């Protein structure tokens, strides 16, 4: 998929662990791990909002568009 999740990079910058963030945004560790590794089909606005609020970042910091190789 050309949309890449850069959540791991932002989390590393903010020094926030997966468990810590999952607890703060009220998401299970499993689901956050799936999101972090890009194994999901989509992300809800309220999840994105919670992540941005907790990590103090913009949606563009988490999501990146990369053109697929033809």
């Amino acid at each position, binding site marked *: 998929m050309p949309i890449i999740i850069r959540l791991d990079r932002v989390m590393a910058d903010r020094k926030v662990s997966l468990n810590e963030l999952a607890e703060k945004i009220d998401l299970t560790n499993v689901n956050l791990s*799936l*999101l972090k590794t890009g194994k999901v*089909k*989509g*992300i*809800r606005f309220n*999840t994105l909002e919670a992540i941005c609020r907790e990590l103090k970042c913009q949606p563009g910091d988490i999501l990146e568009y990369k053109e697929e190789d033809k």
Partner: protein
Amino acid sequence: MESKVINNLVKFEKAVKIIFYTVLIGGCIIFAGIILLFVLHQSNVLTSGKGGIEFSIPGLIARFDIDVFAGPLKAALISTFIRGLMYWLLFTYIILQFHKILRISISECTPFTYKNAGYIRNISYSFFIYAIIDFVIQCIQSIWFKKIQLTGIHGIDLYYKITFPLWPVLVGFIVLCIAQFFTYGLKLQQDNDSII
């Protein structure tokens, strides 16, 4: 699922299991008994007045002496026997599939699984197969027993007539639609689950 719902499902599963074995064993005994009577009659062990078959439906009992195997009703009895056997097989198979659905629902903690959708689809296929076999039996019956037209037996006229059984096709189609809705719902659920 809640533990209360699971407990109820376990109870249902046990009840369906008992029904399945009752129908299976009961049917085996009944059909084996009829075959045994037929064989005994054919080998002249059982003669007239020494045995028979009793059919019972709510509010009505019909007794047939062993002689019916030799009379003009023989062909009609054979076709009734085959049809009865098919009804029993269909009914037993449906109960078995239903039991499997309950078992999967308990083990997976949800009834909404692809396996269960497959079992529902199997039930619908069994109705289609039943309709086809019933039609084939009617065709064979009308070819083989064409000359034996049962007329004038105590004011009852019996003739063979080929008709395609529509009710199993209709029921099978409805059950197949339910299975398709089930599968589609599962796909939607899977899509929804993959959005965080």
